[in-house]
């Protein structure tokens, strides 16, 4: 019997695979989903992957799966795993190759009616000004010394050097830079790959979307985030580019040998791990934090060029304010009350977003009364969501919620029987203009390739992890 057949329903939105279902599991798997989502999840190996995560030494609480879970490498995407900081392990696969892949949302002082007549012009301008990086480089020219400073300062360095506004850095998770980053642990190769790529989107599922606020679901939170109906916002989805990818590649290479030293065995090589407090564990975390800081600087660079593009079309009076920036591939030291005791844990979020509730000291001061903003991009041409973190996340999911719609189909299956011109025409009929480096990129990201984002949101809202604040609809899409 497969794990999907053995899963137990706890309530309408929670499911459990008990730890005795598979040899080596140290804890349960807990899945947040509807019955329909469970049926979809059962089609790939994501539940097996979540069960594999439950075997990691030092895991605290359950191996968690968000409703957007799908099959990844080692860890499922949409997986959360907290390990004990003193005797648990750190797994680079629990962060992924795209360290601090994340999302930021920017609000404009423009409405849907302002943008609609000039939408094509705007999309073309943004496409010119915000490179995807397929040619290898962007417009930010920095030397190696600058790069090493960026690895420490993250978004703040970019702001200090003219690529942002003073309020930008503080409106990001961790203030746009993690402390204790160690640039010396980032290889020369990683630096060489990343240096020309700052301010570039990348390809795959990375994108930039011009959207409007379709509906407000929670007025106080929307007001705190500066959102109103028909307002224009821009969602940016990108990560640490070649620098982060190389950091993960380098660490996996090193961990194969280190695991033998620490006598650690895992069911999948991509789950390679070492003790958090080991030399190798600390080296990885130092490099990972540096790569995370690079990702924040990257999204800050993209924001700068986005602002330029909007000003070119709508004039100097156009303001684009950063609402917030969240990461969804990261490992962070956080503290939770578990069984009445405070525990220091390393929370691995692999395709999952932090969602701290109202009153949490780490939420930016101007949002603290409503909870941390969370942005959930849907698939191309559908909807995206703004959420606010809720107390349930602290009680159940190590302050975490979902990160997207979650893929259902492989890229090849998504393309099957589809013609790019008819896909583009259908989108244009709905008022959505798409520019992509490749036609293939458009077909691979068609909406049918993903789960229904609204259903994913319904789960986290009703489970009390994050609440609905606003639903966003796309107008212009720029893709790698």
């Amino acid at each position, binding site marked *: 019997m497969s794990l999907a057949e053995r899963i137990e329903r706890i309530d309408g939105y929670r499911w459990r695979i008990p730890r005795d279902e598979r040899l080596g599991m140290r804890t349960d798997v807990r899945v947040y989903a509807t019955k329909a989502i469970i049926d979809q999840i059962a089609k790939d190996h994501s539940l097996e992957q979540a069960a594999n995560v439950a075997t990691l030494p030092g895991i605290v609480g359950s191996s968690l799966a968000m409703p957007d879970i799908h099959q*990844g*490498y*080692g860890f499922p995407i949409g997986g959360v795993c907290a390990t004990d900081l003193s005797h648990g392990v750190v797994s680079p696969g629990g962060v992924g190759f795209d360290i601090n892949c994340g999302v930021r949302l920017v609000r404009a002082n423009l409405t849907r009616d302002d943008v609609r007549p000039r939408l094509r012009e705007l999309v073309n301008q943004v496409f010119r000004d915000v490179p995807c990086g397929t040619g290898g480089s962007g417009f930010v020219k920095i030397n190696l010394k600058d790069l090493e400073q960026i690895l420490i300062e993250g978004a703040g360095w970019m702001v200090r050097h003219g690529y942002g506004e003073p309020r930008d850095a503080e409106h990001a998770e961790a203030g746009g830079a993690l402390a204790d980053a160690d640039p010396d642990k980032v290889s020369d*190769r990683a630096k060489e*790959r990343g240096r020309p790529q700052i301010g570039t989107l990348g390809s795959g599922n990375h994108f930039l979307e011009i959207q409007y606020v379709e509906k407000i679901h929670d007025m106080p939170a929307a007001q705190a985030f500066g959102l109103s109906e028909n307002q224009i916002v821009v969602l940016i989805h990108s990560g640490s580019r*070649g620098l982060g990818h190389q950091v993960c*590649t380098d660490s*996996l290479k090193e961990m194969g040998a280190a695991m033998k030293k620490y006598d650690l065995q895992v069911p999948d090589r991509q789950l390679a791990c070492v003790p958090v407090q080991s030399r190798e564990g600390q080296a990885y975390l130092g490099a990972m934090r540096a790569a995370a800081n690079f990702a924040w600087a990257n999204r800050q660079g993209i924001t700068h060029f986005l602002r330029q593009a909007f000003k070119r079309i709508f004039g100097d009076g156009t303001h684009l304010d950063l609402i917030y920036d969240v990461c969804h591939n990261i490992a962070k030291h956080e503290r939770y009350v578990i069984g009445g005791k405070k525990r220091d844990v390393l929370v691995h979020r692999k395709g999952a977003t932090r969602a701290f509730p109202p009153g949490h000291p780490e939420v930016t001061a101007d949002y603290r009364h409503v909870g941390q903003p969370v942005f959930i991009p849907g698939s191309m041409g559908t909807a995206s969501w703004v959420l606010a973190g809720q107390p349930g996340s602290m009680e159940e999911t190590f302050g975490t919620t979902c990160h997207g719609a979650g893929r259902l189909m492989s890229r090849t299956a998504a393309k099957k029987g589809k013609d790019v011109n008819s896909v583009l025409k259908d989108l244009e009929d709905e008022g959505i203009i798409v520019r992509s480096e490749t036609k293939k990129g458009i077909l691979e990201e068609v909406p049918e390739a993903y789960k229904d984002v609204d259903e994913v949101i319904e789960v986290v809202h009703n489970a009390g992890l994050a609440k609905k604040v606003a639903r966003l609809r796309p107008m212009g899409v720029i893709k790698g």
Partner: protein
Amino acid sequence: MSEPFEIIEHTADIGFRASGATPAELFENAAQAMMSIAADIDAIQPARDIRISVEAGDYPDLLVNWLSEILYLFDSGRLAPAGFHVAEITPVHLRAVVRGEPREGGQHPWKLIIKAVTYHEIEVAERNGRWECKVYLDI
């Protein structure tokens, strides 16, 4: 399997199977497979040679490290690799010549940006006298 490689499916990413009469030929074909996914490999001229050597714990490890090396050459702009000659190979060591064109100034753009080579379900094996592998790429 008669073709030197074929693309395989994965929900979020992409993989390939490759084969060869010897480990050397298998590794050459695997590199060819990855670069065919990454770039328009036919447009790359064999203008420059780079010699590389790779170490690892076993064949699967060696394959990941070899492909990661090629990915690094491409993404760093040092070389758009199109031709591969494995001169010497054991399960823990490989020496090869990679042939291609320098990539400064945005020539030979990515067709599909490959983030990394993964260990996910990786296989390298000899079956009925032929060497085969399976590799997934993170994109």
